[in-house]
């Protein structure tokens, strides 16, 4: 009996390799390509899965220990928040609308991320990436649930939160984030890793997750910010996984480079389009602002992202061409988006408003090249009209981009007064896109993007009314029927913040909590 070997302490890396890599085997009773049927159809060539460098080395025992500790703390804070009416500590009830956008537009995507990473965690032939993907999958279900739990208390007191899953699948602007994740999950496992693992988690997290969580911190939202801090170390793990994955693909075979480059181009642009909603949130929806969208873009994308692409240059990866457009767009998109939501405020599940003078001055200072020149007069006009009782709501429906599904609200490169349209033809039908970036994506995979369930088209086709609706009946109000189908409480979830139930209740409850009358 030779016990010497067991007495030697194993190094962390060695021990981790035994705990994970060692578990897998080359199947022989069933062919490997039947056990891993999704491993090759995307054209990515992997020669040696053992070359995968584990981006983090967590065994299940350590995982449970760390995560349970975080969960205990998080739920203690959420309980205290609910018990002590923590919702009355926020800066201003307008802030809640940013949280509504998060719960309806982002939290359900965490759920899809969980399912997609479970699939990736089954489909890669390598044990190392599978374990890492499964850890991310279970983290993502954590994020979906902790967000729902953190925001559940807001739902009890405020409008717009109450039917988030139903709305995600139907409401026009929520098809923007939803189609992004549908697009990624309907692709193969390698593209999923570029789309979500790399583009979303690595390149864009700082522009999505961080602004929402910092916004929460700046606006007294203890529930959301506690969740944010609790998720931070998970997010850090997810970022390293995304980066490792892209490097691994590029190192395995030179033929992978053009495929990976194509996906980076596509998903960078897809992501940036989704971020339009975040830009709008940062510049308009936070009563206490963290920084402008333009500043966030410059710090997190131009500087940090620039460093990342420099790092990837050694593999032959180039900065996506479509990004040159962003240097111009960063001055405009948040204003253009908010102007659109303001006009369609009757059909959004959150409240909209025009900025006050002080806020307009802040916007002028942050956007010296564009705000006064292109947007201030329009916004002031709308505000003046609203004060006179003529709050403007448009009653038509906007044309949507076939790819990003955002209304055609972006402007031509070089001319911020002209809406940008692009057109492609496929099988005798015309399809419209909002930009060169989206047109490029469409033209590369038209057979995929013609399937898009475009909310406006669907409304016009009569597919978005409650069952049994008779659109030929006298006095039929199509917008009201659509809102009904969305499960909106018409007049409560939507319309201007001024005069809303949220505004009135928050003022009354805060009064109860701070005054003696």
């Amino acid at each position, binding site marked *: *009996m030779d*016990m010497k*070997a*067991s007495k*030697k302490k194993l190094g962390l890396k060695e021990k981790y390799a*035994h705990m994970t890599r*060692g*578990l897998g*085997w080359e*199947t*022989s*009773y*069933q062919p490997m390509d*039947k056990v891993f049927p*999704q491993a090759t*159809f995307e054209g990515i060539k992997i020669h040696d899965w053992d070359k995968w460098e584990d981006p983090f080395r967590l*065994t*299940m*025992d350590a995982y*449970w*220990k760390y995560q*349970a500790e975080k*969960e205990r703390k*998080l739920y203690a804070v959420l309980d205290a928040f609910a018990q002590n*009416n923590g919702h009355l500590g926020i800066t201003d009830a307008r802030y809640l609308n940013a949280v509504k956008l998060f719960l309806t537009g982002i939290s359900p995507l965490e*759920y899809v991320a969980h*399912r997609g990473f*479970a*699939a990736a*965690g*089954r489909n890669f032939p390598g044990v190392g990436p599978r374990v890492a993907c*499964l850890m991310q*999958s*279970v983290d993502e*279900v*954590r994020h*979906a*649930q902790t967000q*729902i*739990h953190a925001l*559940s208390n807001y*739902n*009890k*007191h405020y409008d717009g*939160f*109450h*039917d988030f899953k139903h709305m995600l*699948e139907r409401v026009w602007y929520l*098809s923007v984030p939803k*189609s992004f994740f*549908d*697009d990624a999950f*309907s692709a*193969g496992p390698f593209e999923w890793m570029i789309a979500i693992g790399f583009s979303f988690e690595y390149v864009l997290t700082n522009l999505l997750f961080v602004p929402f969580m910092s916004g929460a911190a700046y606006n007294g939202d203890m529930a959301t910010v506690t969740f944010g801090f609790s998720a931070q170390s998970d997010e850090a793990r997810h970022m390293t996984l995304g980066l490792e994955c892209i490097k691994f693909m590029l190192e395995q075979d030179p033929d992978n480079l053009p495929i990976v480059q194509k996906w980076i181009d596509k998903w960078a642009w897809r992501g940036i389009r989704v971020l339009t909603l975040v830009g709008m949130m940062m510049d308009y929806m936070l009563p206490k602002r963290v920084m402008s969208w333009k500043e966030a873009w410059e710090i997190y994308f131009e500087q940090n992202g620039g460093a990342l692409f420099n790092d990837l240059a050694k593999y032959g990866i180039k900065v996506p061409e479509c990004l040159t457009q962003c240097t111009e767009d960063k001055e405009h998109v948040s204003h253009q988006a908010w102007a659109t939501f303001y006009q369609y405020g009757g059909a959004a599940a959150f409240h909209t408003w025009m900025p006050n003078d002080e806020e307009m001055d802040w916007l002028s200072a942050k956007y010296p090249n564009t705000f006064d020149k292109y947007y201030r007069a329009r916004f002031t006009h709308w505000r003046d009209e609203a004060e006179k009782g003529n709050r403007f709501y448009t009653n038509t429906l906007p044309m949507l981009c076939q790819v990003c599904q955002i209304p055609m609200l972006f402007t031509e490169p070089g001319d911020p007064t002209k809406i940008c349209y692009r057109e492609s033809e496929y099988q005798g039908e015309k399809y419209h896109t909002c930009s060169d970036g989206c047109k490029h994506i469409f033209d590369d995979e038209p057979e*995929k993007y013609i*399937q*898009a*369930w475009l909310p406006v088209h669907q409304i016009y086709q009569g597919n978005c009314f409650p069952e049994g609706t008779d659109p030929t009946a006298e006095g039929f109000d199509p917008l009201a029927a659509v809102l009904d189908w969305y*499960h909106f409480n018409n007049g409560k979830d939507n319309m201007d913040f001024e005069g809303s139930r949220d505004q009135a*209740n928050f003022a009354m409850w805060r009064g109860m909590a701070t005054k003696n009358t």
Partner: protein
Amino acid sequence: MQIDLRTVSIKPLRHTFDHIARRFGDKPASRYQEGTYDIQQTDIFHYRPLWEPERKLFDKARTQVEMKDWYDLKDPRQFYYGAWTIARSRQQDAAESCFDMIEDRQLGDIIPAEVRQMALDILVPMRHVEWGGNMGNSYISAYGYGTAITQPCLYHAMDHLAVAQYLTRIGLVLDGPASLDKAKDAWMQGAMWQPMRQHVENLLVLQDWFEIFVAQNLVLEGLAYPMLYDYLDGDFSANGGTAISMMTRFMAEWSTETAKWVDAQIKVAAAESPENAALLSAWVRQYRAPTLAALAPLAARAFGDKAGDVLAEVTSQFNARCAKAGLSV
């Protein structure tokens, strides 16, 4: 004695989300409910999957089992992420203190040689079977329908990974890293393990996720766990191998707990329709025979001439369990 602190009392507009209220009424909901029910998308999908263009992203047709409401398959443990991870970290604390004690006091050294060899031959290669269990359950979590069942299957997949890692540690405690290589060789080449490896590989190519649930979670675990962590474990304890029992404590507790969850799923699905009950029963019959055939060489090594009796007892307990869940097997 009781004291009542006063807080400013605000009457809420609603008690929970609408999709929860539609099921349970507008009353305060549990964290399990809010974190589980109806959070998987069901109605509108933008694109057909490139990997399965004939189906939607989440599609009920990925199994032959039919349920009017897939959320009937609720988890009696009410595991959402927080509840699961906190429960497991408690079990892990207990397991860790066992491993610590064994490693600190070198209790592995006093296990009789034949008992140690038995554990090395039987338990350590099982880590590959556990890894197969991880793969089957992650498949269900990805392609199953409804969070009520897909969520606990991911937890189950991670639990299987953990069990594989505990088995790895047992190998390391008993015979260092070489034990893992020997176990892998036995798994790949040894005659005793080939029926099991063949069976596990056959489960890895199944397409119907509920069939995987039955073959893996009900049949394979339902027969292998009692044999290993009840009968064999009893032999270990009786023969000076208490240290081994201490190191398999997690598996014994875990399988009792998870069997209740598995039974609840089978019971509800079988009660849904005679077609479901017939299908599930047929799957049990289909997978029971190769599972027993795969366990037979292990039982022969473990129990010698009592192997037949042990397998018969395990099978009869298993059959009774299936009958209780509403299956005819």
